[in-house]
């Protein structure tokens, strides 16, 4: 579904990603893990057309080269940004409606309402709080709203940036469990996480980024067992690599 070849991306003059090649198949949950500053968010932003990039990106057979972010959204690719980025003073309902802003002209109100229903099925709590200001909700609820808003664009590929950020472990578990449910509804997911353990538990496959390059990839269950990964990203027993040689 998404094919990336030799992607390099820049923040200003700093190269944050180098020669990244990866792919996501339809219906997969793929996670991208790595330390702070490894280039995870840059990769998502490059896919969405938000930063300067080199390389070949192809989504369902279409090149993303030269497309504006809103055109990329139009192809069926939505991002849930890090830190949620909700419209805090607006209500839950308004935030959700804004998520569908590209669709109002082309599609019927009924189709959009059907998607609202879908979001409520996934996150029933949002329905109870439709009139509440987004900024006054708890972190977990805000994250649900951010995902719900992205879903309103009817994405075929959902990109999530650190959905666990600042949330209690039990809330993280709940939100990540909803991702499996989403996948069953036909949404493909690319999940970027610093919380590697949680991400690897929900994902099918994973890529490990280290200072801008992919150093490992494989089935998520295998990487959960990999000692390089456990040391570096699961917070166990990290010492210099060369130690003991």
């Amino acid at each position, binding site marked *: 579904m998404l*094919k990336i*070849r*030799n992607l*390099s991306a820049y923040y200003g003059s700093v190269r944050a990603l*180098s*020669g*990244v*090649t*990866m*792919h996501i198949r339809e219906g997969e949950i793929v996670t991208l893990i790595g330390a702070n500053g490894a280039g995870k968010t840059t990769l998502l932003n490059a896919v969405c057309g938000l930063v300067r990039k080199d390389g070949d990106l192809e989504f369902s057979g279409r090149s993303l080269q030269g497309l504006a972010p809103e055109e990329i959204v139009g192809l069926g690719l939505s991002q849930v940004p890090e830190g949620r980025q909700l419209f805090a003073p607006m209500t839950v309902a308004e935030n959700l409606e804004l998520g569908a802003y590209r669709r109002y002209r082309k599609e019927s109100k009924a189709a959009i309402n059907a998607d609202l229903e879908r979001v409520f099925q996934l996150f029933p709590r949002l329905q109870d709080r439709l009139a509440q200001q987004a900024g006054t909700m708890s972190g977990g609820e805000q994250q649900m709203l951010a995902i719900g808003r992205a879903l309103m664009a009817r994405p075929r590929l959902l990109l999530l940036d650190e959905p666990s950020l600042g949330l209690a472990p039990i809330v993280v578990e709940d939100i990540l469990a909803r991702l499996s449910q989403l996948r069953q509804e036909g949404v493909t997911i690319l999940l970027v996480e610093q919380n590697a353990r949680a991400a690897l538990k929900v994902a099918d496959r994973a890529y490990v980024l*280290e200072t801008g*390059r*992919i*150093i*490992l*990839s*494989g089935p998520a269950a*295998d990487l959960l*067992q*990999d*000692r*390089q990964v456990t040391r570096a990203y699961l917070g166990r027993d990290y010492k210099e*690599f*060369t*130690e*003991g*040689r």
Partner: protein
Amino acid sequence: MRQPEIEAMDRGEMELLQLERLQSTLTRAYRQVKFYRRQFDRLGLNLDDIRSLNDLARLPCTTRGDLSENYPYGLFAVPLRDIVRILSSPGTTEKPLVVGYAVPDVKLWLELLARLYVAAGVTREDILQIILPPGLANWRRDLQAGAEYLGSSVIPPATLNFAKELMVMRDYKTSVLVTTPPLARHLLTVMTRMDLDPAALSLKSALLVASPLAAEARREIEAGFQVKCATAYGITEVMGPGLAFSCGADGGLHFSEDHFYPEIIDPETGNPVPPGAPGELVITTLSTVAFPLVRFRSGDRTSLLQEPCACGRTLARLGEIAGRTDPIFSVGGIKVHPDQVGALIREALGGHPPKFSHRVVSEEGLEILDIELTVEEGFFSDEIKALECLCRQARRHLADHLGINARITLKELGLE
């Protein structure tokens, strides 16, 4: 097929998978193994220069000599405490070649073995009997573990005589025989001697490993045992037997391209050959964690066929393994370098550099290294008894160190 999504993958998708795994392997090799970092730096190459699979050919090859020079752990890409298996293979010098496995490598290795067995038609209902000499320790362990992983019933290699092995084969209702082509042929001669009818056996197939299966030997074994033959290709430095395997369509050996990238080069110039042309097989690991190998020269002469196979697999196929590009030869599946033979005889002769010629002969299917040693003035006693004793010593030395059967005859200088 064990993994149809991989084994019959669309070529374009396979190449993307190979490229992403190649790039991450090179990143790990560059960052974690000094030897590879130096190789890149020496040529002024950067990781970014490898943008396609074809770019791999810009990197130099890795040889068995490089492995020896980095003895024992110099090419490992993870700290030793992550290593769960350390394997040696004889190499070409006195230092063995050392390969390490981390936990994910062991899992990959088992999956590759399962893939090989499934392609050979083996199921968990089968009873496998493994008859391999101790000199093929790596193959013995690999094939036993892989069959157990698949869930078949395994009769592991034992040190029984061949008549006993055949009795076990008949009475235990072995359905799959795992052995080498020479041993399979030897078993046939023993069967004839015992007057054992293949119809009394329950064999349905034979998996023949460790040395190439010639068409004639194959016909003889298939007719003699009334079975279908399967075969596999592997080298210890690159994870052993699961590297390539035959299928029901017999169109060559399917190469596990998702985990290993094959190239065929001209052994003289080192340049890639045109598609389908013969040359030396060069292998780059794409998934192994502990021991990444970049462009490892296998020494085996073969070719690579990209056309899809009648069996439905799209994995490229190795053609016939048509000999070696180096002096290494095989005695009953055990790889031997002439220098090793020379060094061992020299040791047995108390340090005197020997003059000898050698060839591999087959007796009742068994392969024996036939060595003709030239007797020189003064280097040992001319008493027949003492000479025979030296020959025995040399023979035992070769058996101990290489696990091969040898026969040594003496030739006096000037007598033809």
